[in-house]
């Protein structure tokens, strides 16, 4: 067992874990943060995307011990303390950027990272930026629209960004 200390969604946590434990399993099974899901389990689909030290990573492809000392943000840490949705969450709801919803936590976490780096991405930049996130319902159009909505770059029928 190895001792790890990290900050997850603003809370300090410490645990003894097996070195082979994946970060996603630590989040789900030790901390009960089941908002982060396991999709493909092969590091392709991006459903398990969280932020580690401010950057998006696939948490099925990081060992919990590698995250020791770090700061993790999951989908459960995005909303404000008063329950106010993050503007990207709001945009996915507004534009219905989901079908079955399984990929949504990862899509939202990757979108937040994308907009941190490029606040006004083109449609092409959005599609490239979400390259590591798969939607098996193939609901990509509304996902892209939701990102544009969150960025305030939406055109067409949706109104400007609400955030």
């Amino acid at each position, binding site marked *: 067992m190895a001792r790890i200390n990290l900050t997850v969604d603003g809370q300090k946590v410490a645990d003894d874990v097996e070195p082979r*434990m994946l970060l996603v399993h630590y989040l789900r099974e030790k901390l009960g943060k089941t908002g982060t899901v396991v999709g493909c*389990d092969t590091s*392709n689909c991006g459903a398990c995307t969280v932020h580690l030290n401010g950057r998006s990573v696939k948490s099925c492809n990081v*060992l919990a011990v590698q995250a*020791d000392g770090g700061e993790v943000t999951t989908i459960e840490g995005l909303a404000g303390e008063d329950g106010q949705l993050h503007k990207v969450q709001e945009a996915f709801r507004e534009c219905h950027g989901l079908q079955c919803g399984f990929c949504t936590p990862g899509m939202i976490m990757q979108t937040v990272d994308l907009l941190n780096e490029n606040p006004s991405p083109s449609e092409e930049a959005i599609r490239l930026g979400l390259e590591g996130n798969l939607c098996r319902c193939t609901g990509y159009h509304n996902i892209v629209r939701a990102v544009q909505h969150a960025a305030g770059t939406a055109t067409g029928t949706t109104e400007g960004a609400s955030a």
Partner: protein
Amino acid sequence: MIPAAFEYVAPTSVEEALAALAEHGDDAKVIAGGQSLLPVLRMRLNAPEWVIDLGRIDSLRGVRDGGDHLVIGAMTTHHDVGQDPLVHEHALLVSKAITHLADAQVRHRGTFGGALAHADPAGDLGAPARALGATFVVQGPGGTREVPADDFFVDLFETAISDDEILTEVRVPKHTGWGASYEKFVRIAHQWPIVAVAAAVRLDGDTIAEARVGLTNMGSTPLRAAAVEQALVGQPATEEGVAAAAALAAEGTNPPSDLNGDADYRRHLATVLTRRAVLSAAGRS
């Protein structure tokens, strides 16, 4: 899927890492960013008794100016290399290849040295490293040695790094002012390249003065297309001028056949992508 159980150590210096390697030898795997190793461990294609994590060794991270070359620390993430202004200015081909490498999340974790040491012939960094004539610096119990790119890649997933050594840095000769392009052919997003071509050219007016060309997934290691490089010298940077040289791209290669394409298809792709990459590097497309 969960990896088989292993013991874990995260040294904070190269010396500590080498000591751990010496102690655990054949039973150990070195993990860099882990973006290739962790899927392998999860699928239990490998089950080391020890995992030695280089992620806590700060001295292995960062890009610096080494005079006539850039020094890229082995543990610098793809994202950080790709965003680095020095790399953009002096080794544009590396920046271009990184924009095509995997996806944003993998680029945040995966490392420049880790990917090269993994030596996947379909990896996107080997061809640029060979094309630009990089030097690989490896450290072991006997000290440090330098391995030229032409000797670094030995076979499929096999490099000149010995079991008791680690890759510490990659020195990339400056190609300041050279144009560059990485043409990667995939059928779907987020796929390994079926074939990719890395090209850098230095123009003298409208004429190609020098060229460097590397090939991805055209054999068991990344390759350098020396015949193309030589044939390009003195040619006008036009479709016609480049075509004859590009036609030599598959010469002497032994590409794999798989579900994505047979060897002949890859040979054809190599010539087409070389033409496109050279023209694009010359700013002509």
